[in-house]
């Protein structure tokens, strides 16, 4: 991929992400119905001019539920990645900077975390600590920091031998200050890329969890739990399966394009 293609990816990805952000913020104005309003006589209506994307088995408007669901997806995606970045950056900086046994210990910790199927850990912890949105954000973040930690450690390892870092140390800067002021800003671009890709996968994980009934609890609409109802109406209401899934795919694709495009673009400039 050349630089121009990479830039295209960034633009397409960014447009999708911005569109999503606008939808999430303007949800009350964009929705045509109350997303939670049950209207049994209008259950399982196919897409029409009143119900743009049809209704579910309780007669709720699918379009409005998807519009409001974007809030949950974005919140969980960004929140979880925030948690993961905090943990990953802190541990990665410490491991790379101090080296020695601290480094070995932390990196073995990363290896241990990677031995567990993420979905197993997620389900167990969510079931044990309870499934509020805040818990879901925390848990997805807690199981997703390992990649960032490895990345930041590698950056720190190579940066700490560089002259400007040596100079900062000679000047008597404290370890914490060197890490914060000099290491971190220089390691930021790969972190940014992996954060963008991370939001996409966190949204996928949240929708999977919600689909299994261990994520966001109905009636609060999330893209995953909207699909729970779709499972029961598989043979009769195609719109209930197709639209939520397509929304997830489109969104995650946006974040992936943006992230990969950024990576290539940064690599080539």
């Amino acid at each position, binding site marked *: 991929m050349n630089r121009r293609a990479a830039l295209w990816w960034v633009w397409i990805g960014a447009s999708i992400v911005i569109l999503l952000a606008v939808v999430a913020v303007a949800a009350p104005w964009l929705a045509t119905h109350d997303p939670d309003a049950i209207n049994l006589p209008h259950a399982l209506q196919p897409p029409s001019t009143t119900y743009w994307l049809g209704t579910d088995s309780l007669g709720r408007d699918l379009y409005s539920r998807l519009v409001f669901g974007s809030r949950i997806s974005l919140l969980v995606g960004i929140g979880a990645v925030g948690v993961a970045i905090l943990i990953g950056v802190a541990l990665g900086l410490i491991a790379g900077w101090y080296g020695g046994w601290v480094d070995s210990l932390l990196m073995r910790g990363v290896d241990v975390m990677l031995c567990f199927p993420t*979905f197993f850990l997620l389900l167990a912890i969510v079931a044990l600590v309870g499934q509020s949105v805040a818990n879901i954000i925390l848990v997805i973040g807690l199981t997703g920091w390992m990649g960032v930690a490895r990345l930041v450690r590698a950056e720190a390892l190579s940066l700490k031998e560089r002259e400007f870092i040596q100079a900062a140390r000679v000047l008597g800067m404290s370890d914490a200050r060197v890490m914060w002021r000099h290491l971190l800003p220089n390691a930021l671009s790969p972190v940014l890329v992996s954060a963008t890709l991370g939001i996409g996968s966190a949204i996928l994980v949240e929708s999977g969890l919600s689909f299994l009934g*261990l994520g966001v609890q109905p009636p609060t609409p999330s893209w995953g739990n909207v699909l729970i109802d779709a*499972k029961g109406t598989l043979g009769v209401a195609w719109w209930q399966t197709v639209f939520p899934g397509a929304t997830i795919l489109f969104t995650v694709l946006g974040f992936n394009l943006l992230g990969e495009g950024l990576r290539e673009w940064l690599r080539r400039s």
Partner: protein
Amino acid sequence: MIGYLVRRALGLIPLLFGITLLCFVVIHLTPGDPTIAGGELNPKISLQARQRIIEFYGLHDPLPVQYKRWVKRLLTLDFGRSLTDNRPVMDTIAERIPITLTINILSMLLIFLVALPIGVIAAAKPQGGFDQATTVLVFVGFSTPTFWLALVLMRWLGVQGQWLPVSGLHSLGYEQWPWWQQAWDAGRHLALPVGVSAFGGLAGMARYMRGSMVEVLQQDYIRTARAKGLPERLVLFRHALRNALLPIITILGLSVPGLLGGSVIFETIFAIPGLGRLYYDAVMARDLMTVMGLLTISAILTLLGNLLADVAYASADPRIRVGRHS
């Protein structure tokens, strides 16, 4: 090679220790008392069940004593009895491992069969039409929620067309059929789960394969092979592919946890009685005994997968096989 493998196996010991420690932490994760998971009034856990958890893990003992007991039990693979059906947890797990293993091995084979040629052809002409087309497909693959794909395939291939069965592993009354009909029946039942599970890993594998091939194709020995006039087909498949496959072996080993985790979703959707379904049911019933047992076993299976990948790598790489360590 033996020395190399012994060193790799020894390296797993601290990991094993870490795994037991982390599992132990998860047991104690619940605020207050692990037995009141999901709230004091959780009706899913009866008083007797609570009592059994407290007794089994010795929750009133000091932490180091608890940990020692839990590791000692682990060494004999004793995870206690399930809170729902009172069978030893390990028996149920042992019963279900073959099902999940079969599906995952089949899906790995499928991934390999599809991703390998895609990666090789894409790498043969980087930036070519095929490469760009597959790059786009890889992105769509990465972004597709597999549980949704399962629902979509279920609807069009299973419910609407009735071409494939959508749940379980056998049809009703399959016991009376001749073996070839049983095999055909099992194959039809496995088609969707294996297909969906493979789809999840396909994009990643195609990408790794392409990356690995591109890297190998820049090596000096490839230029030499071309310079001495070998046809491109031989260069690609004899010289490049064999070397490009080496890192893929490690990737296969690393993909074990992802496959196990993914099995929760498709085994639940397709009603397949494997490890994933067992885990999901245990979590929903708050059966802490089964959850902890399976969580530990899954991590150990991952370690075994990594070790297996090391063995495969060692026997495939002549630098290690012959004994000169790199």
